[in-house]
């Protein structure tokens, strides 16, 4: 039965990673939000499952937080923001989707190689989860880099943070405090970004960061490529 426990834990971890690829693949903001909600939901399931097999009840709180906040509240809030601010619903990507995916797979390979090297003595379970978590973090970063739109950057940041939580729940005996603080950090970031949205909107009437850069003279205006 232990095999089944571990296999399910692996599966959930990898599903989080898969949804990260889903985020990279999506081209529409609402679909992006849905995929993000799915990711948070799977993360919650992973946390709950870890809580169950290791008998660590505090992980249920993490699960609940992930479920309520990230799977429901934030997506709904962002959904409303997009509607209210009339943000263009297409994800403006700085790099082709295909290229992004190729880079994504390379990043996953890199993190696997990295984790393999560092944790050669650890159990297969920890290694696999760590590899998934590191990949999710890297993919979140990648998403923040390649997307021009502020909303998708926020989502990239939160998926990065999901990766951190995935790493935290994978390690036995991680104290709750850390997770809470991490979760709060995200909240703070979310609020900051939220204010930022409105700020930019007032000034420039758009949420496209490219305009900000043009305004600051960092780059030449160029047609959409």
């Amino acid at each position, binding site marked *: 039965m232990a095999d089944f426990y571990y296999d399910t834990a692996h599966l959930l971890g990898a599903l989080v990673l898969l949804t990260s690829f889903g985020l990279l693949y999506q081209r529409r903001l609402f679909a992006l939000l849905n995929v993000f909600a799915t990711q948070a939901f799977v993360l919650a399931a992973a946390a709950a499952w870890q809580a169950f097999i290791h008998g660590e009840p505090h992980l249920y709180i993490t699960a609940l937080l992930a479920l309520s906040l990230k799977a429901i509240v934030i997506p709904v809030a962002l959904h409303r923001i997009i509607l209210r601010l009339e943000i263009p619903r297409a994800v403006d990507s700085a790099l*082709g989707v*295909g*290229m992004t995916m190729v880079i994504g797979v390379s990043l996953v*390979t890199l993190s*696997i*190689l990295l984790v*393999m090297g560092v944790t050669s003595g650890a159990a297969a379970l920890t290694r696999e989860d760590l590899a998934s978590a590191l990949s999710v973090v890297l993919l979140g970063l990648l998403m923040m880099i390649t997307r021009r739109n502020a909303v998708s950057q926020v989502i990239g940041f939160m998926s990065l943070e999901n990766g951190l939580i995935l790493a935290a729940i994978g390690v036995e005996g991680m104290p709750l405090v850390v997770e809470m603080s991490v979760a709060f950090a995200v909240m703070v970031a979310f609020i900051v970004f939220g204010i930022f949205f409105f700020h930019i909107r007032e000034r420039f009437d758009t949420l496209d960061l490219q305009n900000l850069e043009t305004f600051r003279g960092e780059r030449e205006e160029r047609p959409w490529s």
Partner: protein
Amino acid sequence: MAASGVLLSRFTGLRDLAYGGTAVLCLAIAAAAVAHLAGNVAPVSLVLPVGLPGAVTHLRVDSLSALFLLVVNVGGVTACLFGMGHDRMARSVGFAGHADRAPVRTLVPLFLAGMNGVLIADDVFAFLLSWEFMSVSSWLLVLSTHRDAATRRAAHVYLVMASFGTVMLMLGFATLIGTAHGASGAFLGDYSFAGIRAGSPAVLPATIAMLLILLGTGSKAGMVPLHVWLPLAHPAAPSHVSALMSGVMTKVAIYGLVRVVFDLIAIPQWWWGAAMLPLGAVTAVLGILYALMQHDIKRLLAYSTVENIGVILIDIALAIVFKSLGVSALAALALTAALLHVVNHSLYKSLLFYGAGAVLAATGQRDLDALGGLIHRMPITSFVWLIGAAAISSLPPLNGFVSEWLSFQAILNGPLLEQWELKIGIAVTGALLALATGLAGACFVRAYGITFLGRPRSNAAAQAGEVTALMKASMIIPAALSVAIGVVPTLVISLLEPVTRAMVGEGLYDGGGRSGWLWVSPASAFGNSYSGFIMIAVIALMSVVAALVLHRYASARLRRAAAWDCGFGDAGPTAQYSAGSFSQPIRRIFLNQVFSARDTVVMPPPGDTAPARFSLELRDPAWDWLFTPIEQLMGRIADRANLLQFMTIRQYLSLMFGALVLLLVVVAVTQS
């Protein structure tokens, strides 16, 4: 056999005798090679008392040489047949620009002699001499028929890359000889292959030598990024010479690589293979992507050669990895795949080039967009070309699939290795190889569909006629061999066994496995098996049954009518998909990001009667980043060397004196 090189060059006088005699001689050598392989004979050596002063020339034929002799000379036979047929057609029809073929007739035997020489050489001097002979004669062949600017440019690029390759080979062999030490630790300085074999170099010099040899042979074979000359030079030559260059000469380069890595350097390292894997994979994918973009059928074929070389390099890299890690059964599997692919590619690439030559002879066109509908006008050519196209796309039950199947079996074993880099690298290589295979299918559907199917896109294509019997024969022979190898691959695989035994210490079936003639089933391949014979038998049987049942019980009536085309009226042949439109989706998916491909559409404003213009710009990154610097370097060296011609006697003397002193210093230093 040793005298063949000398003999071959004699047949230059009479018109048909040149080709006919060469063909007979090639046939004899090929037969002897088969006998050598099948008979499991010990290597035959010969020492000729000619060569550099105080040195002799070593010649030797072992199983590896015999196999490549077979490849070269079968190609030689068909090329001579095609050349003879083409000359006859030129005499009877008299098409312009092809009148004077005498230089080609003279040079082809020399070219073949050069290639044979490389294969039987057993010392560095003979090897390099034959290699240069091969390069120069093929370079002259490129220049022989057309002297327009594009051909001259192609020849120039070829010359630059060929000299680069030879320099690399020289340096590589020099590294091997210079660092060879005998059992007693004494400096050997033996230039024969036997001496290099006995040399047992340390890892570092061996790696440097391996790298240099890879650059030298790779530039000849068309390895990316050293491929730039190949798609220019191969198509510029007459078609049967293109076939020899693409189908055969690249294999001679592969021979050089295999000879050095598996035979001369006794200590292959696994990371050599690991470094070669991405090279091979990139070569395969880029080669075929470029082939897909070509509008000139011969350039398309030349780029497809680049792809096939990539596949062979992948197999060789796997064989290096497996051999160095001591898994000789798998090394045998990978090397068998490589060698079988060498044989297969030489067959179908020759066939495809002859077919392109036949189309060129019949229509005067190489541009895909001026062809079409030739299946009605040239039934035999179009049928054998179909076999070649299907074989090169690795479709069962033809020969291309067998070698691809073996490659995949070798790749499937990769993850069982210890090294993480190899596990992941081999998995990625597998994906890229599969991608290249898929792209090859698209490439040859495009090539065949646009050349032979549909409706003619030009008057020349509409009035084409079938070519001469000899030209047809030159295509039918490789086509028949392709089918035969596909259906009963074990015949050739059994010929490869002595080679793999000599190179990696084990034959394909030495570890057990079913070795009947019906199944390809290497023990090392997880116990998987494949049978082309049963497959084709079942397909043929079921097709006949299906046809009979339908005709007997359903309906056998058939009516000819105008094409339906979704109810549109006849839009004329120009409404067909062209070469450019066929590959447009693939270009959009792959090329826009990889190479700066840019297509621009200029639409006239409404009311304007000017036609809309479409133009496409493609750049080969290898050209900008690699070839141009090499060209400049070679040019600078040539300029410096040129100075030597215009020096005074005093300057010459001081140069010689300087060289002498330098030599003495070297001797003094090494002796102390």
